[in-house]
């Protein structure tokens, strides 16, 4: 067992876990934050995408111990003060989801993409940058539309 401490959605947390605990297991099982999903568990699907110090990562392929002391943001912490994050709002407005299983990962990926992207962003670039997030309902068209709409509105100045 190992004590692993980090900041999750702005709150300091600390839990005793097995050394081999994955970050996604720490979030879902130790902290009960089940918004981060496990789709494939093989680093393909992106349903478990979270932010480590603001940078997107697949939490099924990171050991919890490896992010000791770091700041993690999950889908539960993306919106502030009871308001949806602009990317969440855009997914709703653009109908960027069907079953919703991949949606937390898609939104975390899209929010990080828009916040960190420098310069113009077009549909082709969004599709290339989002290829690590799979949607089995084939909802890509509206996902891309949602991400482009947030980029157009904010020019990448949204905190995520």
């Amino acid at each position, binding site marked *: 067992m190992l004590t692993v401490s980090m900041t999750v959605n702005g709150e300091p947390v600390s839990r005793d876990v097995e*050394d081999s605990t*994955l970050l996604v297991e720490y979030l879902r099982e130790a902290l009960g934050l089940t918004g981060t999903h496990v789709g494939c568990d093989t*680093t393909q699907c992106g349903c478990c995408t979270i932010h480590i110090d603001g940078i*997107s990562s697949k939490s099924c*392929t990171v050991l919890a111990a490896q992010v000791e002391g770091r700041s993690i943001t999950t889908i539960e912490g993306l919106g502030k003060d009871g308001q949806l994050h602009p990317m969440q709002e855009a997914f709703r407005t653009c109908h960027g989801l069907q079953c919703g299983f991949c949606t937390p990962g898609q939104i975390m990926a899209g929010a990080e993409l828009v916040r960190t992207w420098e310069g113009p962003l077009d549909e082709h670039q969004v599709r290339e940058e*989002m290829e690590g997030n799979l949607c089995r309902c084939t909802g890509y068209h509206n996902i891309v539309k949602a991400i482009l709409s947030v980029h157009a509105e904010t020019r990448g100045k949204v905190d995520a």
Partner: protein
Amino acid sequence: MYPFIYRRPKSIADAVKLFEAGEDASYISGGHTLLPTLKARLAAPTDMIDLAALPEMKGIEETDGGILIRGGTVHADVASSPLVQAKLPVLAGLAGSIGDRHVRHRGTIGGSVANNDPAADYPSAVLGLNATVITDRRRIAADDYFTGLYETCRENGEIVTGVEFPIPLSAGYAKFRNLASRYSLAATFVVRTEAGVRVAVTGAYNRGVSRPTHFEQALDADFSPEALDTLEIDPEDMLSDPAATAAYRANLVKTLARRAVARQGVVQTFK
């Protein structure tokens, strides 16, 4: 995963000590090859020694020999490095073509070069550019470093702390991706240097990253796609799997080599 003890060394020297003290220790860097391997229970290390947070393992700098990229540097940092983009843009492009955006935020050059997956991108750049692999105990020429599928000349416990890339006259990389795995079915890295042309192929050879020297000789005489017209790659040397037969890969290697010759200075990704 089988259980293991997680260990956080304070330095590279400390990491080597922990490795030697462990019963069956493993290093972890980005973990994007190792953790999927452990989940599939294909390995059972007793001690997991984390190199990812060591400051000594991070960074990109200009040296007399070219560009030094330290082993723990993630693909995204190589792709976005102004130095790499200016001096060796094909390497920046190659790093930006690995896996997907999130994978590039975690995966490291040292991990890729240490693991030597037969379809990984970095080994083709290291071999094509005749780079020097730097470890905690020596400097190794690329031609001596890669020894087979997932095999290198590293000793047990030896850490890839960096790779030093010389600057070529020009270089080009052309890859054809397996859409399911995103690894290359075949990819060719073609380099022009003062000493001659070097061609390194990943994804295709059944002995891992390799140089088709007959391609190099033909391109030394005439650096044009047509110089490869009469040459063939032997399917006997190729990997074969449900995604691509050996004969298909042999043809793909030649096609991609022609394209990398035709368009030096860029990365071309086909899928």
